[in-house]
């Protein structure tokens, strides 16, 4: 059994090393994508990368974040809006307001 103890310990440290190499629990980074040049305009897209690691579970989410535009000597930055998420957030917020209004009305009538 002594041999087991040593080898299992080695295995444990090996797995710990793999975990450390895989990264931290949560990581949020803004990463540039390859440049695209059209005529005198060069654009550099940026993406937001969210990596979550909970035990043996990994979740990676990448979404377009912004575009840097270089034209002659001028550099501008355009944000990429996610209108679908905005609309969803608006609907959920409106629904919560609706719930709250219904609950308030119900309590008011119960008290009356």
């Amino acid at each position, binding site marked *: 059994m002594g041999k087991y103890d040593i080898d299992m310990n080695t295995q444990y440290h090996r797995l710990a090393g*793999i975990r450390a190499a895989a990264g931290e629990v949560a990581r949020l980074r803004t990463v540039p994508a390859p440049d695209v040049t059209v005529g005198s305009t060069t654009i550099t897209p940026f993406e937001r990368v969210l990596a979550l690691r909970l035990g043996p579970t990994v979740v990676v*989410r990448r979404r377009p974040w912004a575009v840097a535009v270089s034209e002659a000597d001028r550099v501008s930055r355009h944000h*990429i*809006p*996610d209108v679908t998420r905005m609309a969803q957030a608006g609907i959920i917020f409106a*629904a919560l307001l609706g719930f709250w209004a219904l609950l308030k009305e119900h309590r008011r009538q119960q008290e009356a």
Partner: protein
Amino acid sequence: MDLDPDQFLQNLQKESEARAATLQKLYSAADSAKVFGQPVVSGAYTVITAAEVAGGGGFGSGMGFGKPPHKRMSVESRDEEGAGESAAPRGTGGGGGGGGGGGSMGRPVAAIVIGPEGVDVKPILDVSKVGLTAVAALSGIALFGLKILKKRL
């Protein structure tokens, strides 16, 4: 089942290496090539699509070792069993298993249009997703309203 510890640990090492490789694959599954598409040229316009991509996965595994309980044998019972059988070595046992799963999704977010007028970012609305959210939210409010109405009656 007799266990060869070296063989078992070799298998365990192979499994952990395979798991690390799969973990790395999952990390790189949603790469930038999938977020920003290849530029498409049409006349004076160049279009680059931008999409949200997400992926995830998980693993689980377990293993165990065991030895049969040592029985204290009396001299009489040892004599009854016979020398050959009682001298046979008691083996150790062990086993392990694992499994995993994963998935990924993609959704268009915007189109980057490069034209004679300059660069324009055109957002894309996913009507199905918004519609489903609206239906779910309205259903929730309707159910809640009905519950309140029933209490009142």
